[in-house]
């Protein structure tokens, strides 16, 4: 797995949006796992596409990067690679530490 802690700086005025944002990201992992189990690559592509758009908008660059990998992986139908990305995403969310400024 990755690093011990992922430090992210988020704009102060977005602070009140972050709990909902992170809650939705956890739901996203569940949705990704379900889609992978069903080999629903179109759903995986759409979820990856959404992650790519929203992640770095809030300052979570890694979410956008993982999202792009999932989007690309879904197009190739590579289940093993997708599983690795989803695991990476889950690990990231469990270790992310936010500071507001």
């Amino acid at each position, binding site marked *: 797995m990755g690093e011990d802690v992922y430090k992210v700086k988020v*704009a102060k*005025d*977005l602070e009140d*949006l972050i709990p*909902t*944002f992170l809650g*939705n990201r956890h739901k996203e992992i569940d949705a990704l796992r379900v889609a992978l189990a069903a080999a629903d690559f179109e759903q995986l592509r*759409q979820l990856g*596409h*959404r992650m*790519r*758009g*929203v*992640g*770095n*908008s*809030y300052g979570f660059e890694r979410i*956008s990067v993982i999202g792009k990998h999932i989007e690309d992986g879904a197009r190739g139908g590579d289940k093993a690679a997708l599983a690795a990305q989803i695991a990476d995403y889950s690990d990231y969310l469990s270790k992310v530490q936010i500071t507001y400024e």
Partner: protein
Amino acid sequence: MSSFRVLVVDDDPDMAAFLAKIITAEGMVADAVYDGDSALLSVLTQAPDLVLLDVMLPGKSGFDICEHLKSDPATALIPVVLVTALEDHESRVRGIQAGADDFLSKPVNREELIARVKTLRRLHETRRELEERRLAAEVQRKEAIRKAFSRYVSPRLADTIIRDVGTDDAPFKAHAHRAEVVALFADLRGFTRITESIAVHNVVEMLNEFFSVLTEAAYHHEGTIFNMAGDSLLVGFNVPFPQPDAPARAWRTAVDMVSSFGPLSVAWRGRYGVETGVGIGICSGEAIIGNVGSPHFMSYTVIGNPVNTAARLVQMAQADEVLVAGAFYQSIRDLVPEARVQARGDIALRGMSEATAVYSIRL
């Protein structure tokens, strides 16, 4: 400055919340919807000043929504920014074809978002300001035309000409037509003596005062002034607009002309030592109405028996006397105190083939 309203359309609630947050922080108003149908409904309900539109929407895509907005004249000028993570060339071309005003890439950079929205806001507000100025200039121009026209026709007629110009309903129809009209001639009694004994510039001033009083009375009752010559004024009723109460209007105009002229006559007596009054002739009947003249000069004219008869009657009328033809009298007799009326019998008026029943009404 009025509030600038941005409609955020994105099926990802987090993305919509983020965009709305940034917009609000910049002092603008943001509303968020999450699908295409809601976006169209929102625009229809309250048109925004700008739309931030996600491309990948469930149902109608952002391209479809953009195309829809840009094809409707009512919404075509609302700036649309397509917000998309699609980076391929085809998607950009598709967005341009849909009429998008700008693009914003996802992930969204806050500074870029603010800069683009502010630029479009400036453009939008400048365009709106120019449109407001254009409308104000248009109103000003119409008002100037109306004022100019109002010197020649009643204010209501001037308004109608400006409104209907170029339409088939224009009151000054190219072709002449027949209509029932009431013709009223008013004439200044004592004018010959005025021209002989008073300085020219004073005569002109007196005529201006005289016609001011008469035209005000005519316009007050929405008569149309057809002719002003020498010391005589021709006013028509029931033309060019139908006036079911045209005889009553003509009668009240005559009463107002005489009563309004009273104080002026007194003033002239004091200033110039002249005795004056208004004589009036009125007749109703069928006449021909139309534009007569050449391509260089045209006159809106009323021709026919009622005009000729009224002209003869006014020649006979004394100061403060209204001479009216029989048919017209019958249509206003309820309005006139009987004591003021004197039947003159059938009179053979000059140039008329048949005798005319004439009534004299003293005011």
